[in-house]
């Protein structure tokens, strides 16, 4: 039987009422948990594995996969409504999504996210069926030099994320890199910048840092703004479907970015969202709208996020390589049910493999059917008086910080970075580049040092591997073009001083 035949069989299994119910429960639970700050898809999936122990393998994996997708969308809700990323991959949505909420366009932002997530997830699931094996062989060519070059490519986005001042964007990038250096050196095993605190040996977790930078700093500034008589948020107008339609090109590009990066194990869910945001800003005819409520700044990253979630299943299914922590948890669930992901899965258990793949389509459909009608419900949060809402947000942020490692210290980290966020706003240092390098920095350092270990300290390894060389050339060209334009612009301003 060919793939299409197996897929049809799988659809039949996934559409059984029992499995549909589990997919629905998974989507609901995943969305609800994803809304909670600090409880990301990894923790949500891990915590809810016990719920699936009594189920048969197909139902268990269908439910866990639905939790994974649901948690991705849930993180978007808090990013848009209260500028607090529910999970790391939703951080970039804070930049424009929250601005849209402040302008009374929260419904549109959430609707765009739902539609984009559906389209990105569905197309990526089709890609899983059609292109799994050929693309996976390409992804296998990615070693440490290619990873390092890819992350450097991501770093060039810093210049596009930073607004009009390249200097301040680079300061933000450096601060993000610095935050990522705290902890144990990934190669030598020495502590760095831990100040003798055992809590810092594991480094600074992204979630409390991002919650502080975006969420807590926003609250502290809102409380100080005498120009605001009440809530900084405006009751949302109805969804503007014209804007949703106009964001289709961004959704298309986000699908491509998320899908391609999902094939590469180890990239992580946040990188596609930042790359997508940078791409949207680059191709936009009105880039200065970004950071002020540009719908493409929500559509692209949210689509990339879900396309990534689907595409990252490809290395797991075809090679048995989990591309992220969440997929490692899913792989654990596979093993607990007596199934080994990898090339033999399709041969030995085709009914299981294709039923789960078919359930991805169903899960995406359930998510949009659930979440679009729920948008008016979510935006009711904006009607809660701000003086009650912000203490609740602070409590959720404290709990979310502590929940990660069980350390009250992480709540202190969150508060500290809230004040850092205020200081950055005071100096007009943008937060977006900082959040990008916070994530990329450790990955770049690790892959660079691994590459140089492979080459006995020679940088030539980056020039003898075609994929790495190609990515480095792209990075240099993009950076040079932007720097030339900005320096020419800044020189024109300085000559007038």
């Amino acid at each position, binding site marked *: 039987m060919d793939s299409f035949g197996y897929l049809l069989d799988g659809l039949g299994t996934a559409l059984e009422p029992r499995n549909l119910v589990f997919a629905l429960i998974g989507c609901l639970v995943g969305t609800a948990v994803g809304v909670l700050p600090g409880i990301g898809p990894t923790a949500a999936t891990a915590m809810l594995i016990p719920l699936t122990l009594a189920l048969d393998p197909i139902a268990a994996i269908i439910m866990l996969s639905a939790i994974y997708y649901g948690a991705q969308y849930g993180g978007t809700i808090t990013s848009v409504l209260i500028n607090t990323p529910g999970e790391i991959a939703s951080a970039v949505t804070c930049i424009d999504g929250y601005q849209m909420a402040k302008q009374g366009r929260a419904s549109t932002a959430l609707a765009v996210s739902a539609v984009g997530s559906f389209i990105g997830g569905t197309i990526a699931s089709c890609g899983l069926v059609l292109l799994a094996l050929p693309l996976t062989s390409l992804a296998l060519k990615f070693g440490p030099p290619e990873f390092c070059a890819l992350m450097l490519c991501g770093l060039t986005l810093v210049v596009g994320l930073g607004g009009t001042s390249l200097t301040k964007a680079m300061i933000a990038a450096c601060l993000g890199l610095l935050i990522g250096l705290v902890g144990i050196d990934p190669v030598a095993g020495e502590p760095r910048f831990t100040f003798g605190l055992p809590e810092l040996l594991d480094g600074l977790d992204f979630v409390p840092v991002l919650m502080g930078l975006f969420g807590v700093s926003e609250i502290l500034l809102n409380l100080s703004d005498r120009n605001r008589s009440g809530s900084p948020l405006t009751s949302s107008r109805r969804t503007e479907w014209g804007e949703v339609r106009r964001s289709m090109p961004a959704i298309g590009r986000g699908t491509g970015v998320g899908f391609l990066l999902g094939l590469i194990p180890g990239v992580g869910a946040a990188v596609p969202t930042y790359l997508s945001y940078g791409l949207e800003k680059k191709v936009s005819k009105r880039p200065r709208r970004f950071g002020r409520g540009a719908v493409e700044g929500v559509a692209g990253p949210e689509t990339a996020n879900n396309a990534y979630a689907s595409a990252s299943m490809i290395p797991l299914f075809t090679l048995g390589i989990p591309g992220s922590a969440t997929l490692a948890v899913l792989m654990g669930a596979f093993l607990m049910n007596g199934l080994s992901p990898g090339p033999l899965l399709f041969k030995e258990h085709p009914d299981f493999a294709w039923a789960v793949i078919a359930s991805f389509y169903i899960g995406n459909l359930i998510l949009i059917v659930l979440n679009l009608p729920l948008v008016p419900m979510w935006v009711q949060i904006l009607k809660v008086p701000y003086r009650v809402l*912000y*203490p609740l947000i602070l*409590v*959720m942020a404290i*709990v979310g910080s502590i929940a990660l490692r069980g350390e009250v210290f992480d709540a202190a980290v969150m508060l500290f970075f809230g004040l850092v966020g205020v200081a950055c706003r005071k100096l007009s240092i943008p937060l977006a580049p900082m959040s990008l390098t916070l994530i990329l920095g450790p990955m770049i350092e690790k892959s660079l040092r691994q590459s140089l270990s492979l080459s006995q300290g020679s940088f030539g390894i980056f020039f003898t591997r075609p994929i790495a060389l190609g990515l480095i050339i792209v990075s240099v060209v993009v950076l040079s073009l932007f720097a030339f334009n900005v320096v020419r612009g800044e020189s024109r301003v300085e000559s007038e001083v």
Partner: protein
Amino acid sequence: MRRPSLLHLALVGVSVATIVGSLRRAVWDELGPGPGFFPLVVGVLLLGLSLRVLVRDSRPQPATEPDVDEDGIRLEEEVVRLGRKSWLVVAALVVGILTMDLIGFRIAVAAIVLFILAVVERMRPPVAVGIAAAISAGSFYLFTDLLGVQLPTGLLGV
């Protein structure tokens, strides 16, 4: 010429501290960059950039036309300062977080929320107490009982 702000000086201070900290570790060994290499590069770059910003922001700024975006909409400069309310909230959070391991999550959070509602927002005490208790108990129940997350219970085991 304007005086550099404390924040500018703090930025320079952080970069100098980073350079000093990185030089205490191996910058390069036989296999390439050591633990001190990346921090040194970041520290040097940050120092240069923060000095540039410090010098530029210290110069008198010329009067310029209002900044507008592609649609001609004026881009307002954000006025950034923390007022009394913000500092009170920060103080409440500091005290609550520092004492959380001793008094437990529920009491600490209830105290933080009660202080914010009753003192900062000047809400009527019975309403403030009710909301604080609900938020504290609700969040504790949600995360510990429903999601199995361990939250501190303090010396009293509350």
